[in-house]
């Protein structure tokens, strides 16, 4: 009886969190599925069931595919830069002998992450600005004026300008997390490898990478999910333009809901974002479920 009560009390303790999650996360999620199969007139409040029409419309919508591709590029570049690039940088920083240098470099790389995305977006908007922007001035200053571009004003360069800003902003944060994971690896492993004549690059692949696998998996999930939820920086820097070339799924959702009044279609785009991020997260968890490395 006592044991049963004790078990029940556990449920009681988690109940408030479950209720809050249910109301603020899962209920809107379920509601969104409902909205995605309706045509919703926000003015009259009338919702008409349209079945899979919004999904059919979405798959024949070229801007939806442009958005999806932009998100995919965002994810691929973010994985290269913010997962593998950050891991390599963290390993390099942690291999420095002097602690003062390590701390200073960690701080330097982390500073951009402390800036809000909106502020960073605005900052880079002015760096890219064709009239007074720093990037074009620097290019001209070093004799590369021929490469100066209205970076955010051209369909061919706008999304890449945004992705580059995002890497600058997120790189330091990932580096810091990897640095913490590397610090947890016992130094004896590196010392033994050094005595055996193993060089720094092989040590990185044979010791560091396997022992930070969990952190790498986590960072990949976070990075890919983040890449499919990107919104602020695009809105601040290009609003999805020019001519929809830098739309991502979240801004396309927003455009449909708040500009075109098509909230049902916007909900269908939201379902796709949810499905993609959930699918990727489940896949990542599945392939990294191998036993944890113990030491």
């Amino acid at each position, binding site marked *: 009886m006592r044991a049963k009560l004790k078990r029940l009390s556990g449920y009681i303790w988690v109940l408030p969190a479950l209720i809050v999650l249910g109301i603020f996360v899962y209920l809107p999620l379920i509601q969104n599925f409902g909205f995605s199969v*309706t045509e919703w007139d926000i003015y009259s409040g009338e919702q008409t069931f349209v079945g899979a029409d919004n999904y059919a419309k979405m798959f024949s919508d070229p801007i939806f595919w442009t958005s999806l591709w932009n998100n995919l590029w965002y994810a691929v570049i973010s994985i290269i830069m913010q997962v593998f690039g950050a891991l390599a940088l963290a390993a390099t920083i942690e291999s420095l002998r002097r602690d003062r240098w390590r701390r200073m470099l960690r701080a330097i790389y982390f500073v951009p992450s402390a800036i809000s995305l909106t502020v960073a977006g605005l900052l880079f908007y002015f760096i890219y600005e064709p009239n007074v922007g720093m990037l074009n001035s620097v290019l001209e200053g070093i004799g590369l004026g021929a490469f100066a571009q209205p970076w955010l004003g051209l369909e061919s360069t706008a999304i890449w300008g945004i992705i580059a800003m995002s890497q600058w902003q997120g790189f330091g944060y990932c580096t810091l997390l990897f640095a913490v994971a590397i610090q947890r690896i016992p130094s004896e492993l590196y010392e033994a490898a050094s005595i055996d004549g193993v060089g720094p690059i092989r040590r990185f692949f044979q010791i560091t990478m396997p022992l930070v696998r969990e952190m790498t998996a986590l960072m990949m999930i976070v990075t890919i999910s983040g890449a499919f939820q990107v919104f602020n920086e695009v809105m601040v820097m290009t609003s999805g333009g020019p001519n929809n070339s830098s739309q991502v799924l979240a801004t396309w959702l927003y455009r449909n809901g*708040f500009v075109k009044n098509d909230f049902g279609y916007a909900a269908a785009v939201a379902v796709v974002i949810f499905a993609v991020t959930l699918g990727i997260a489940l896949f990542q968890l599945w392939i990294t479920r191998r036993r944890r490395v113990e030491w």
Partner: protein
Amino acid sequence: MYPRKMAQALTAVAATALVLTGCASGGGDTAAVDITADPEYSGTISILTKFGGEPLGPFFENAAAAYTELHPDVDFELIQETDQSVKDKTKTLTASQALPDIYFTWTGDWAENFIEAGLAADLTPVIAPDTEWGSTFGEASLDAFKYDGKYFAIPLYNNGKFMGYNTAIFDELGLDVPETFEGLIEACGVIKDAGYEPIAFGNKDGWPGLHYLQQLFAYNVPTGELKADFVPETATLDHEGYVKSMNEFKTLVDECTNTGEGSNGVLYTTSQQAMADGKAAMYYQEILEFDTINAEGNVVNGQGFDIFKLPVPEDAAGDAQAIEGSPEGYLINSKSPRAALAVDFMKFVTNMENATIMASPPYGQPSTVIDAVSAESSSPAVIEGIEQVNEASQIVIWLDTVTVPDVAFAWLAGGEGLVSGSMTAENVLESVRAASESAK
């Protein structure tokens, strides 16, 4: 077993979702409010304005404070947004059925959505031209919000689009105000050779480009066809004036701006600043912007600021006397329990004293109240702008609010494509026709 369980779970989720969203349910009607009733001077009036930020922000704050001084039991919840953010805020509040007592509106399709859905109170008994309050407004301003013979909005200020120019640069280069669009393009070459930016242009938000296009459409497309083309059910969009206008706009972007194809990467506020700093000779702007650009302390204020209507192209088949613009106003929420009080507050906001304050610097908003814009209250440019608007044969409403959102969005993307050079005028027209067709 597993797929069956999965299917059951999905069915349950879908069913729950439909129940939770209340599919096929309407917004629900409430009894019509009596706006003619004597207001009860207590409670909180909520207002969504488009006066967010400086220098406009204090106008409604001060008016609300003055009203509270007269009626101590009345207080205010002010939601002040900017030109861009008010669109999103209004739609969020509409979708969540939380519209304030008084809310901002443009003319055209924007206002019609609220009126048709019964979200705007019919103000005819208090604001029709033959009423005491209505007779204080210019009739054309009231008519801009007239639907099916009823008046729905309180027009707060007029607006129109003009080319502002730096008179010192024009004098220095011996230029006169161009009389034709082709003359304007020629003048751009002279200004550019002298080292100035002829026309500052920032199209990051898309609508600055649409403002040029709409004025050129009014010049190049016969009025009847143009108006029919705003409505998907009657649109054909096959007049040659559209392609002509878009090509003229593209010429202007290429010949008259320093940023050319990259103008989509420039904010309109950056262009404003270029004009204010005396770096650009011209900037296409609304009357509402005159006093901001020509404010005391700005370089252009010391050099000289004047305006002219965008010159008419040769062989224009439309209305050469039309000016693009429209009054902007406020609707009263038809479901507001304080509608009568809201009307009383808007009477207070539009009395001669407050209308004059609004028309004077630093606000410089050309009030729709008769005689509020005068030499004593307003800058010469604002007075000239308003006079030209009053003399125009017609006011052509902004392209992004006059038509349905799908078509407006197609114009917006097409305008950006024209600027960047990725779309031809024919491509743009084709995409707009497709959007109009699917919006029928």
